[in-house]
């Protein structure tokens, strides 16, 4: 019947290594840019406080500036969330496809 024994731990190992691989490579690329973006926003917030202290902008102007910065942080975090979901999706699909080979091999014919 089956050519190889279907071992659950083998399947789980294969799935987990596929997930780790995807997460590691994707986050390595995203993290440095996101850090840079958030640092520049922090610098901007300091500048707004400075401009307000120097009386170069009014309270209302400072509030509008803060809104712009706040929304910028929001888009960065949303991007993080979106890329995270894409990464999770990739990891799930990669884990599922890694199982394909193991299962087909164990069954002895192409079930998946």
């Amino acid at each position: 019947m089956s050519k190889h024994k279907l071992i659950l731990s083998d399947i789980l190992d294969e799935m987990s290594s596929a997930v780790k691989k995807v997460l590691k490579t994707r986050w390595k690329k995203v993290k440095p840019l996101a850090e840079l973006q958030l640092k520049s926003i922090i610098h901007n917030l300091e500048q707004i406080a400075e401009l307000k202290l120097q009386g170069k902008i009014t309270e209302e102007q400072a509030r509008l500036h803060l809104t712009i910065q706040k929304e910028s942080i929001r888009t960065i975090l949303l991007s993080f969330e979106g890329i995270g979901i894409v990464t999770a999706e990739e990891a799930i699909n990669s884990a599922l496809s890694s199982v394909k080979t193991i299962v087909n091999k164990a069954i002895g014919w192409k079930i998946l």
Partner: protein
Amino acid sequence: MLKFFSSLFILSFFISCSGIRLIQEYDSISDNRINSLQEKTAKFFIRVDRQFSKPDLNYDNFISFYDDSKADINVLLVRNRALYKTSITQQQLESLLIQFNSLELLHKKGFTSKEEIIIIKSAIENSFTAILQFQLSLKKRSNT
């Protein structure tokens, strides 16, 4: 054994469907429109920087830029609302719209220093980078 084979059946169902989709598909029209809005905005900041402290910087001379940009964002929002699982792109566009509205109000009041413009430029550029980064990750996925 029965439990194992039923799990296998469920698994095979998922694998046989062309992968699981948790988030929107890549939409090249949205991506292109965001890129062209980013280009338009970059040109706006170059113009503002060059005309700083000159009468040409007057808000009235930039009304068409604000009208066009806000219309672009609204078109993108309507398009994305019609697409499936685009909540992140929609929220990012809403954020961008708030940024453009605030920028317009600041411009109406008159920019008092170049630092002000640098701060706004950097925040809006960061927003575009984040939005395009997300679009790129969708594009990469659609190519794999």
